[in-house]
């Protein structure tokens, strides 16, 4: 089984792809059949992925020598495009995580989407997404990855705009698509550079060639540019500042989608890509600093926005942006294992919280404002307590998963700082402060939603078992998932690392600081939002610091800034270009088209239908060719009597 799975890893993405085809062409009229097909496919993928994980993680050989096989797709001289599979601990971990979360969320969706007229379509999209995401993860070259990358983008677009009757959903889908396209374009440029300079997009080959970039005749400056171009893709996809604006709006999609795509899997594709191409970034310190700084800034920036948001899914969305910033920060300071570790734990607790939020929205009939909730834990114990576990995990309370990964990130950032990067201290400070803010805003949400007084107008009820089962499983992982990477027994960094494995001594001081920050955040939230039943103190604070509150609540006006920019600069530019297009370009094109048509009509008259004409043209052509060849050809010219 294990050997079979290793040799047939391509089945993992293929099964959901087949499910997509089956649903679209066959089972669409029968919703239950569609969801069964979809779940069966993703579950089989999960089983395969688990076998692969077993095979990879029981054989240390995979660390140094990944399993790679590929198939020539098409090619020409000097340029071959392959599709292939690259299995190493990093991709295996992703494969396992993605297939599991996707399976759980599809199970959850059977309850959540119950009765929706587009039920089958929803599952077909989920299958397509799972196929593309799994395909992205196992890609052995960047072109294949890029194709999958675009496909997950397409799925994200389709699923954000799933409720097509809602204008806001349609707008959000458009916004997500266009914003990420900006990133993808930068990335495509970067990939083109890589292909032209290094002659390959194969990850393994690139990893060998890039460190010797000077032999390929390029300077460090150009390589930095390439790295940053490639990084623009992840900025868009993983919601990093300044292209983060689409992610909160993406919450217009159905909640399982937010959990699957916009929290646990697709948005981490950017992080994964940077992790995969870390060999490129590692060569250029400048690009690494950019990654680290953008990551840290995004983490802090999004956390400050999350402080004042009122909609439950928006708070979670900003928290996702912020956590993605953490992952980027870890990669930027050169630690693949810390970044991937946080990716792993985050997937569980964030999917858990999103699904919990979905359960709440399900119960309250889509009432989204946390201030209108309260005391839900009594009526919805499973949702509530699993959500609390998620909250403890993200706040960094041991032994929950988030603690270990966040601690790891803080540790590597501090190490970075002490190894001669003075910028590192700034990064470290931003990261620790964000940790405090995270605990605070998360628990603000939890206290407001699940504790305190019940609101008489709400009639919550616990969700069906299909929805609570995934919550319980995810809560299990959010509790225990971090134990494989504790500083005392760090299996994680033994398996997943870049360069030398990281041998940090467990730093008790740092851990205490981290726990203190988490507890302080939770405590502050407790005082403000639980003890103070009328919430007078926070209201006073908001009054007193009105400007700050407004800036945060309005997300630093980034959207408005973009809108202003589009309305003035882009629109004005567009007007100029439109004029040019109408009068100059169209003029030329119309002229050409007219000429083409006229010449087509003119040439048509040669076709008389008379046999004699045809024969005449034929022999005339033979004659002309002979004469031309004869006169153009010195040897024949002599004999035919022609001359120069």
């Amino acid at each position, binding site marked *: 089984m294990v050997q079979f799975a290793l040799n047939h890893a391509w089945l993992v993405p293929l099964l959901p792809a087949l499910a997509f085809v089956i649903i679209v062409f066959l089972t669409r009229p029968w919703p239950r059949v569609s969801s069964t097909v979809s779940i069966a496919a993703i579950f089989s993928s999960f089983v395969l992925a688990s076998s692969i994980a077993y095979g990879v993680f029981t054989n240390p050989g995979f660390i140094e020598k990944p399993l790679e096989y590929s198939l020539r797709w098409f*090619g020409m001289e000097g340029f071959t495009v392959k599709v292939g599979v690259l299995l190493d601990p990093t991709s295996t971990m992703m494969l396992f995580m993605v297939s599991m979360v996707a399976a759980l969320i599809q199970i959850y969706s059977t309850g959540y989407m119950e009765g929706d007229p587009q039920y089958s379509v929803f599952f077909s999209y989920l299958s397509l997404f799972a196929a593309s995401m799994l395909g992205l993860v196992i890609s052995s070259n960047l072109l294949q990855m890029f194709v999958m990358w675009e496909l997950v983008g397409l799925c994200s677009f389709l699923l954000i705009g799933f409720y097509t009757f809602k204008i806001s959903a349609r707008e959000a889908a458009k916004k997500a698509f266009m914003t990420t396209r900006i990133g993808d374009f930068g990335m495509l440029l970067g990939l083109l550079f890589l292909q032209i300079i290094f002659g390959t997009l194969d990850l393994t080959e690139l990893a060998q060639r890039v460190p010797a970039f000077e032999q390929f005749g390029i300077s460090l400056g150009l390589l930095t540019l390439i790295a940053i171009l490639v990084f623009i893709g992840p900025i868009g996809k993983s919601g990093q500042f300044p292209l983060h604006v689409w992610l909160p709006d993406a919450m217009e999609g159905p909640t399982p989608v937010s959990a699957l795509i916009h929290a646990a899997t697709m948005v981490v594709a950017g992080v994964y890509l940077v992790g995969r191409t870390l060999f490129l970034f590692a060569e250029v310190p400048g690009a690494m600093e950019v990654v680290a700084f953008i990551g840290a800034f995004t983490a802090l920036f999004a956390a400050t926005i999350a402080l004042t948001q009122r909609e439950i899914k928006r708070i979670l969305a900003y928290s996702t942006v912020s956590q993605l910033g953490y992952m980027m920060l870890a990669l930027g300071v050169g630690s693949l294992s810390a970044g991937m570790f946080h990716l792993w734990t985050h997937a569980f607790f964030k999917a858990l919280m999103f699904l919990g939020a979905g359960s709440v929205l399900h119960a309250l009939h889509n009432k989204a404002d946390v201030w209108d909730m309260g005391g839900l834990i009594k009526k919805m114990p499973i949702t509530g307590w699993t959500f609390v576990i998620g909250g403890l995990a993200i706040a960094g309370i041991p032994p929950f998963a988030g603690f270990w990964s966040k601690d790891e990130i803080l540790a590597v950032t501090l190490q970075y700082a002490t190894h001669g990067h003075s910028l590192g201290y700034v990064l470290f400070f931003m990261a620790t402060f964000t940790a405090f803010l995270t605990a605070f805003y998360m628990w603000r949400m939890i206290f407001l939603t699940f504790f305190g007084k019940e609101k008489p107008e709400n009639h919550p009820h616990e969700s069906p078992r299909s929805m609570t089962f995934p919550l319980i499983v995810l809560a299990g992982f959010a509790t225990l998932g971090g134990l494989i990477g504790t500083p005392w027994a760090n299996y994680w960094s033994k398996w997943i690392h870049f360069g030398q494995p990281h041998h940090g001594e467990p730093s008790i001081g740092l851990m205490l600081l981290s726990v203190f920050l988490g507890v302080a955040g939770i405590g502050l939230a407790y005082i403000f939002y639980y003890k103070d039943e009328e919430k007078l103190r926070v209201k006073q604070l908001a009054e007193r610091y009105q400007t700050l509150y407004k800036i945060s609540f309005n997300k630093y006006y980034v959207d408005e800034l973009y809108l202003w920019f589009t309305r003035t600069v882009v629109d004005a530019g567009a007007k100029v270009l439109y004029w040019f297009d109408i009068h100059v370009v169209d003029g030329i094109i119309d002229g050409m088209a007219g000429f083409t048509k006229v010449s087509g009509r003119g040439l048509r008259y*040669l076709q008389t239908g008379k*046999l004699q004409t045809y*024969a005449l*043209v034929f022999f005339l052509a033979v004659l002309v060719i002979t004469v031309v*060849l*004869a006169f153009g050809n010195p040897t024949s010219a002599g004999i035919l009597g022609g001359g120069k």
Partner: protein
Amino acid sequence: MNFDFSLLTTELALFVLGLSTFVLGLVVPSASRRGLGSFAALGLLLVLGIAVINWSNQGVLLNGMYLVDGYANFFKVMFILSAILVILGSFRYIDQHVGHHFEYYSTVVFATLGMVVMASAGDFITLYLGMELMTISFIILVAFRFMDTKSLEAGMKYLLLAAMSSAVTLYGLSLVYGATGTIIIGEVAEAVARGGNSPLLVIGLTMLVAGLGFKVAAVPFHMWSPDVYEGAPTPVTSFLAVGSKAASFAILLRLFLGGLGDLHGQWAMLVAVLAALSMLVGNLVAIPQTNIKRMLAYSSIAQAGYILVGLVAATEAGVKGVMFYAFLYIFATVGAFTVVAAVYNKIKSDEIADYAGLVQRAPLAATVMLICLLSMAGIPPLAGFVGKFYLFQTVVQGYMWLVYLGLIMSMVSVYYYLRVVLVMFRDDPKDPSPIEFGSAANMTLIIAMVITLVLGIYPGPLAEVANTAAQTFFLR
């Protein structure tokens, strides 16, 4: 002399099939003669199996007069495949408009035999024999609806003009023979390498370009094709467009690369000009056409122009491009013509305007038409895109102007292809009753569509096969 008959299995099987179709037609009662179409199709399927099994059974017969190599086998499989598709697509058409089933089907098989012989021809006589067998079969087929004046007129035109082109080809062959003293293509190459260039050779070469240019319908030797394509029974048109053209390309390449390869400097520019003219005229004149068969005829002239580009390159990659493109062109063209034939069965019209709302009347047919036309236009991810890519990539060095021209003309072609699509998908039908195709024609359509899609997405294996076959010419 050692004569290995096993190398001729495919040819013999075809011959037996053609004869037995004919004889069976004479024997069985006239009511069951229509079943002979299925008989011929099944027989061809068997022959296809034989050809594929015998793929690696390669060798040379009669001192190089008959060559059974990878190149020939590739084309043989292609011809037999296209004959199967054409026959499957023509059941209803022949039933309704022609009759004379067994004559029709056995003639198709004999035409196929001619093509197969052409693909293997190693000397001028075999080449000419194969070509005439094919051409004469086609003359019969074109005039097959002899109660229909248009078909008869087309047959007459084809007879006279084909005779003329045969004469020119023969003249060219005799001049080459005169200059080199041999009729075996391999020995011609040696003689050319020894003796170099001579005026006789150049004139012979010109004649050959003209004669074979007629067969592939390259401008300025194309004038017969729109009239003949329009007048011929539609299934015959499709066979003429794919089989005859591909077979002529097969010998064109064999002659020019295998025999006259050393004179590349002499003919490359000439062929390049013909390619350019074909692309230009074919695409431009296709625009004002209102009859779909005429439109497809001009489009097929343009396609011949694209394929000639591979000959201009005269490299392994060029031959590979030609073979790949010819292969995909078969499916796209047969798919389109099968739709045309079936639609004609129902509405008795070939006017593009009458295709209004086809998607509502026959969704499968409209989809196949869409895919085939887009493939011909070279839109990814369909086979035509990959084919054009392979072809034009070979002349990037040296004939960049040809690449630009091909690019521009492909864009022009999108216009007239999409016009049909627009009519089919946007307009409302005058009469919304569904159009039945019959399961055999549906099979042709589905095969054409699937292969066009698969070759576009995953061209690797076929390209590999074509590449291996293409090396035949460059082993020396």
